[in-house]
């Protein structure tokens, strides 16, 4: 579904992502792992159109999307969430998700229907599927960190994506919240048939839900393979895990 070939991006001569290749098939959950500064977030920014790549191709559903603006990429069915919560701070949880659906429904040129009367059902459905129904009227600046991370995913879901990119979905979460998040991500894949690409530092989470793992270091792909392959790979253990046994 998503195929990346020879993707590179440098910042002032520093190769943040160099010659990365990645292959994600429909319905898979693929994890990207790697030490801090390995270029995971940059890779996601390139795929979602926040940054323009220097070279390489990003083939999404048979079409090269490298260099397209982010709104155009979103329209093709690729949404993402952010590592640092990136939502509409002054608005309520409900409105946050509603805006995302409005954009998908191309409703942003509707000038005269009150917003409070449109897309109520669709919004409530998404809120219910992530378990935020009760908090729908809270201003999101006042939510707990865990709820904000979930809202972050809910906003991405508003675009009704086929492909979802999650940048450290559980960063900073308490253990019980992490469990909730694992269930949520698995549910999205099983129930809605979403293909998911995510990066994460929590190895427990990675091995629990990923069908395949790609390891990055210093901007380049080290290996892409199944959990067992990655677990058993000597190079991964040396670079990423400092030689110790995984888990």
């Amino acid at each position, binding site marked *: 579904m998503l195929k990346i070939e020879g993707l590179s991006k440098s910042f002032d001569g520093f190769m943040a992502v160099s010659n990365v290749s990645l292959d994600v098939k429909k319905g898979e959950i693929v994890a990207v792992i790697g030490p801090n500064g390995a270029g995971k977030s940059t890779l996601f920014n390139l795929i979602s159109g926040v940054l323009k790549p220097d070279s390489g191709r990003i083939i999404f559903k048979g079409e090269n999307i490298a260099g397209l603006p982010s709104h155009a990429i*979103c329209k093709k069915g690729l949404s993402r969430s952010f590592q640092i919560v990136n939502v509409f701070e002054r608005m309520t949880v409900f409105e946050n998700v509603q805006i995302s659906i409005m954009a998908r429904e191309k409703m942003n040129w509707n000038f005269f229907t009150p917003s409070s009367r449109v897309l109520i059902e669709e919004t409530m459905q998404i809120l219910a599927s992530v378990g935020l129904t009760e908090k729908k*009227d809270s201003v999101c600046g006042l939510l707990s960190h865990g709820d904000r991370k979930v809202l972050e995913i809910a906003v991405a879901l508003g675009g009704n994506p086929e492909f979802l990119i999650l940048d450290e979905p559980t960063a900073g979460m308490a253990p019980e919240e992490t469990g909730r998040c694992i269930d949520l991500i698995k549910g999205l894949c099983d129930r809605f048939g979403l293909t998911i690409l995510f990066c994460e530092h929590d190895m427990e989470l990675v091995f629990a839900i990923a069908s395949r793992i790609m390891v990055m270091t210093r901007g380049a792909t080290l290996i892409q393979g199944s959990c067992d392959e990655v677990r058993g790979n000597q190079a991964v253990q040396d670079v990423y895990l400092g030689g110790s046994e995984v888990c």
Partner: protein
Amino acid sequence: MMHRGLSKRNWGIAAAVLAFLLLLPLFLPRFYVYQISLILVYGLLATSLNIVLGYGGVFQFHHCVFYGMGGYATALFLTKTGLPFVVSFAAGGVFAAILSFLMGLITIRLSKLYFGMLQISLGSLVWAIIYRWYSFTGGDDGIHGIELPDLVSSPRGSYYFTLAVTLLCLFVIYKILKSPFGSVLQGIRDNPVRSGMVGINVKRHILAALIIAGFFGGVAGSLFVVVDRTVFPDMLFWTLSLEVLVMCLIGGWFKFFGPMLGAAIVIALRTFVSGFTVYWALVYGIVMIFVIFFLPDGVLGFFEEKIKPAKGRAIADKG
């Protein structure tokens, strides 16, 4: 933000204000009626700026260009053509919207402060053209003693006309801001990057908002012609833009009626304080400092915060 309509209390306030405004010319002297008309004009101007400033997060530093453009368009149509008043009046908003579109095409390429700086430069260019083009615009003299039809030429007539147009415009702006277009605009204000990420063409959306703001700014300019029967280059000088920006800040730029209240406060200050001292700007500056330090959400934001418990109860009652 999810209120369905106005609460009972707000309806009461609205009705009282409306009754006051309607009956006003019957007992107030002409001078004060004129001042209230000015407040309405500047209030509409500030509210139109706030579409992009408070709701869109755009640093529109030179909004008065559209105000002046509207005023000049109406004045020139009235003095140089024989077209009916309605057409001349409508020309104000339309020409301002066109100018806003053209300027927006250029300024939209930048964001935040850079947007504002570029806008000041482009706006000053328009000012310079009007200031220098004696044969057409009257240069720094402006155009005076503009003939108006009987209906709006009397002080009372012009007041009621101004009131009606202002209320109509406020209603339309309110509807627009509460529509999906307005919601998306507020989303862009809070987070432009994420807005693009959910599929919104941020630049095109902002450009549309700029055109709308320009249009209503232009209508305010046309109204000024009805109130004052003159236009002059100062209408689009950047200091006036600053003053309108200050009106939004004083009143509260995250509230719909904030700019209107800000306009009332600034005009009232100017009118009354300048009766006592020529240094009225000093008093104005001190008020400004106090507002910024103690009322960061503006005067209206402050008072809404004060009556919030009552409002919270009203929402709870509704379910």
